[in-house]
């Protein structure tokens, strides 16, 4: 949940990247980190295993500029995608303002995508959030690989009503990464405007 600070004239929002193991959540944040000017970002923190799998979370603070004299800051988090880290995923969803679901486009990962999306919906519900009502975008990642499902297939599986903004991406080379971030940030700010 966003934090409005009248004293320092700042607004802070929390965005969480969710998705199955190895789908590319950490890679999204790394790309954003590498392509953001030093004045607009803080340090990126990764709590990871020795094999670079996310253990608890990645964290990247970004500042986007000012709206009406308020500095807008976004705190980006990733969850650990591996199934058995569910307790940690729940903790990271606390206070979330916007969610990016990163799907792995490879055909053999369809089951994992579906499972993770159901897990997201369930864990949000536990905290009193409804995935259909909060700022939410989908990213179909790994489009550069040969063994991928078509976007139509992915859509019919993960975005059947087609109301969620979705983006094709290839996170290591940045395709779609900032489009995804901007889309969710916009939704979050629009939600703030409504004052919930």
């Amino acid at each position, binding site marked *: 949940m966003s934090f409005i600070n009248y004293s320092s004239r700042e607004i802070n929002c929390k965005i969480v990247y969710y998705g199955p193991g190895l789908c590319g959540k950490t890679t999204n944040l790394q790309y954003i980190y590498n392509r953001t000017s030093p004045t607009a970002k803080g340090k990126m923190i990764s709590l990871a295993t020795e094999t670079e799998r996310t253990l608890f979370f990645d964290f990247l603070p970004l500042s986007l500029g000012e709206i009406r004299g308020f500095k807008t800051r976004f*705190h980006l988090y990733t969850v650990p995608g591996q199934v058995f880290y569910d307790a940690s995923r729940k903790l990271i969803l606390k206070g979330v303002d916007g969610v990016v679901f990163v799907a792995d486009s490879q055909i053999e990962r369809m089951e994992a995508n579906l499972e993770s999306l159901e897990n997201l919906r369930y864990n949000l519900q536990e905290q009193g959030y409804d995935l259909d009502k909060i700022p939410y975008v989908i990213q179909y990642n790994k489009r550069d690989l040969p063994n991928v499902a078509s976007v139509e297939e992915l859509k019919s599986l993960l975005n059947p009503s087609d109301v969620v903004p979705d983006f094709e991406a290839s996170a290591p080379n940045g395709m779609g990464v900032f489009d995804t971030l901007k889309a969710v940030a916009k939704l979050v*700010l629009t939600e703030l405007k409504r004052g919930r």
Partner: protein
Amino acid sequence: MADPQLVMYEEEFVQIQQVCDKLIRDANALVVFIVDKNGQLIATSGDYEHLDTTSLASLTAGNIAATGGMAKLLKENEFATQFHEGEKQNIHIQIVGQRVILVVIFDERSSLGLVRLRVRKANEHLNDIFESLLRKVQDPSIGNSPFAEITDEDIDNLFND
């Protein structure tokens, strides 16, 4: 939504800052900061220029969240206090009013006993301040979010550079 929106006003901010400044002196500590449970930094006091307080805030919240998860599994309400002892510096972490976290960093010029004592006092003050802040936030007669007025254009402009 799950929790009421967290808002900080100038009046309460000044009070919170005063509590932190006093705690630094009374506890002979190096740094004091206050973080909300979601990792947003609320106030900082002491010699923190060389510290990455944003990262510390997020890690503190992660730490408290993880410990809170452990507490739940043990059917405990929460572990309200934590202490980490280093070679040169120590960290004392205290949950205040179930909503925010008070962190004190100190070295050999202070002691755990002194820090505990002073934190207890500060905890009471902070509790009162945050309670009145919460009441204010939930009071519908107090002005709306400044973001009620922003336009789609304002939002677009953020992304145009």
